[in-house]
């Protein structure tokens, strides 16, 4: 049994083989059976990827849906629904060969038609992120039912990164074609090709997924099912993992200040890997339209007033690391030689003097409004720390607490002075970094260049990096862009975030790729 499984693994791809081999090396045989109880928070409105792409949706739906590829921690592609692929020499043609015998949960086979429909119609219509990239596709054809050929209008080097399940899951054409994608009945009962199929969702209570018997990897998945419990209170979530009522927590489930306590539990493992594909970078969000924030010297001084080590060590308790420049160190083309100025309050004060921002009798140079990010206690603590550090350079932050709805609206409408934000980088600066700094993306929508930073040279460099087919050429452009950005500090980068995945030691193969808890979990198993 184990022997034949290994043979099949080899067909599925070397990295997968290595993971099972790792487990075997530790003397743990993958074991069939058991239900994984875990947590989902906050409760997603809809579990159909594409129609909804919020964080919790990605976590649960990635067990039901798959894409052509997934990515290793160093962002190398790993085959999923595509067993192999070729890229033409000019970087314009991509040919994917699909796995045989892939079935949707309704029993119908998945073919090239479904893949093309998903890319060209489904995600193109629904998902802003996919739309921006897939518009570059000139033609999409299926030479045979298990081959997809995509031809681009121009070479686009990060193209493969878009074929990850959180960006482009494969849906059934039969279930969506001819309907409004957002209101189709299948949206309430998602149907994908993943190892787990949707069974039940009692709102406010739990989502139950069950092993899909006709999954295309024989013998997998190992788990009989996954249950996502909806637990709205962070202390209750901590108790749930502590008392063993759930075996795993992920993403925002556990507040960072609860992590040290859970690290002490002998039966639990705390992992912070598995966010390399997303590489969320947090920053103090700056509105350049508000004086004196338009002055790069002021922004640089504010950046120097912040002790990033304090933030990672004392607020996040070692989860994540200090940011060094606008591109996270786990994202491609990060240049380790380009660094923002370090923590130095004295120089920061001198910079502000030089910028003509003199302190008044109370020692205050400027008063700015600040909106903490309303996503949990930790962000309030961060903003309190920022207020303290800004006070050292005579900048007074006045807190304005708002809820998530107001926050999104105010950032999107540029109705803020300073705030805190974090943004996913999706593996490549063209996909996830460029959008914050190019002037062509100054829009009244969250996660665009809401700060209003504009530098023609930076625009040029990002454009050059976007259209170049050659990686060294792109590296040059990105390095130059990083150099300018660390001087002008358009946003005050704080930390490279990571989220703790805390799980029972009996649970194996949890974090094996660069997308972490967003893999399909087809090789996750409960030992003993």
């Amino acid at each position, binding site marked *: 049994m184990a022997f034949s499984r290994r043979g099949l693994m080899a067909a599925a791809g070397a990295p997968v083989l290595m993971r099972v081999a790792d487990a075997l090396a530790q003397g743990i045989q993958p074991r069939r059976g058991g239900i994984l109880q875990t947590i989902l928070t906050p409760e997603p409105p809809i579990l159909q990827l594409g129609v909804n792409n919020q964080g919790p949706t990605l976590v649960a739906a990635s067990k039901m849906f798959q894409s052509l590829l997934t990515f290793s921690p160093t962002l190398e592609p790993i085959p999923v629904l595509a067993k192999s692929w070729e890229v033409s020499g000019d970087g314009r043609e991509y040919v994917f060969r699909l796995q045989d015998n892939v079935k949707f949960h309704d029993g119908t086979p998945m073919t090239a038609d479904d893949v093309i429909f998903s890319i060209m119609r489904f995600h193109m219509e629904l998902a802003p992120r996919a739309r921006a990239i897939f518009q570059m596709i000139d033609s999409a054809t299926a030479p045979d039912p298990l081959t997809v050929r995509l031809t681009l209008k121009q070479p686009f080097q990060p193209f493969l990164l878009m074929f990850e399940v959180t960006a482009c899951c494969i849906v059934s054409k039969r279930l969506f074609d001819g309907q409004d994608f957002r209101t189709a009945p299948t949206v309430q009962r998602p149907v994908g090709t993943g190892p787990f199929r949707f069974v039940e969702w009692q709102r406010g209570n739990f989502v139950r997924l069950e092993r899909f018997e006709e999954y295309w990897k024989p013998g997998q998945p190992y788990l009989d099912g996954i249950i996502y419990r909806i637990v709205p209170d962070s202390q209750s979530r901590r108790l749930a993992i502590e008392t063993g009522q759930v075996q795993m927590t992920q993403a925002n489930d556990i507040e960072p200040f609860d992590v040290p306590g859970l690290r002490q539990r002998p039966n639990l493992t705390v992992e912070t890997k598995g966010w390399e594909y997303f590489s969320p970078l947090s920053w103090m969000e700056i509105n350049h339209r508000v004086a004196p924030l338009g002055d790069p010297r002021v922004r640089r001084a504010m950046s120097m007033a912040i002790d990033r080590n304090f933030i990672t060590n004392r607020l996040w308790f070692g989860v994540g690391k200090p940011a060094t420049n606008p591109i996270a160190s786990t994202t491609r083309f990060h240049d380790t030689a380009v660094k923002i100025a370090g923590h130095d309050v004295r120089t920061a004060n001198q910079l502000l003097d030089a910028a003509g921002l003199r302190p008044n009798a109370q020692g205050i140079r400027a008063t700015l409004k600040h909106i903490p990010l309303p996503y949990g206690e930790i962000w309030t603590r961060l903003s309190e720390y920022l207020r303290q550090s800004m006070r050292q350079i005579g900048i007074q932050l006045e807190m304005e607490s708002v809820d998530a709805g107001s926050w999104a609206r105010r950032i999107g409408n540029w109705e803020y002075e300073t705030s805190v934000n974090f943004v996913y980088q999706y593996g490549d600066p063209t996909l996830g970094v460029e959008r914050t700094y190019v002037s062509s993306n100054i*829009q009244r929508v969250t996660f665009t260049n809401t700060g209003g930073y504009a530098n023609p040279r930076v625009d040029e460099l990002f454009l050059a990096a976007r259209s170049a087919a050659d990686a060294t050429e792109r590296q040059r452009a990105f390095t130059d862009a990083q150099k300018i950005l660390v001087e002008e500090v358009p946003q005050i980068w704080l930390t490279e975030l990571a989220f703790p995945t805390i799980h029972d030691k009996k649970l194996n193969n949890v974090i094996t790729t660069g997308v972490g808890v967003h893999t399909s979990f087809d090789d996750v198993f409960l030992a003993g």
Partner: protein
Amino acid sequence: MDLTRLPGFLAARLAKAAVVILAIVVCNFLLIHAAPGDPASVIAGQSGAADERFLAQLREQFGLDRPLHVQLWIYLKGVLTLDLGFSHRQQLPVWTLIQARLPATLLLTGTAFVFAIVTGVTLGALAARRVGRWADSLITVIALTFYATPLFWIGLMLVLVFSVWLEWLPSFGMSSVGVELHGMAVVLDVAQHLLLPALTLGLFYLAVYARLTRATMLEVADQDFVKTARAKGVPEGRVLRAHVLRNAMLPVITFAGIQAGQLVGGAILVETVFAWPGIGRLAFDALLARDYAVLLGVFFCTSVMVVAFNLVTDLLYAVVDPRVEAVG
């Protein structure tokens, strides 16, 4: 009670209730739309990427691109035909969402309600009977403690003791998920999950009922008709039950009426701490997500409950105390 006047009374009260509820609906609608942000921007803010077309598509789908008075008119027409609208965010009719959550809340608040009244009134009566003695002091101290302690803290402490230390009871949820249970096992399982949240929610009200019963009973016990009853030789137990307690019930009923009106929406905190899948959390999540239709739907149900229980309370007065007349 004069039964011939009851239909007129009911008709008048129902007509008033309809006007009140309609006014509440309009006020709620305007208030909710005055909050900054809309469902589309919330979704954009949580999706990690968005563009203007995405926002425009969502706003059109949600009907937010129409003028406010048109949206209000559409909503009112719906409510008048008992159609609470559609949650575009969740792609489900509001009534379906509320219906799914209502039983959980009613079970929790109903249990807490009954527990609070029965235990509270009993303890209050006991304290009144032993006024000034150690039993009275003990009950008063306990009642005051529960009255003064925040709900969520009591909840967390109960969890700490019964779930973490003793491992007797589950700390969250309404039932065990992923195990096959049948018949009595299901009831027992839910009861186990219910115990801590119901206790948490009930303890506060228990304190109120105990204090209220004790105070009014002492007041009534001093009155002449009680002395007369005792002078007639009525046994002490009967004096307390039939003469004192019954007359002391009116303030308790008033308060119970108010609490009953909050049965639907009043348990948000407890539902959150214990991950109880009730309607309070539905409303709270809807508020954060600016899911207008769901929020209005919950408000509508809550206001209907409040109005209905006020009516029931008024009728109960007349039953308990024949001197009170049901007059519209």
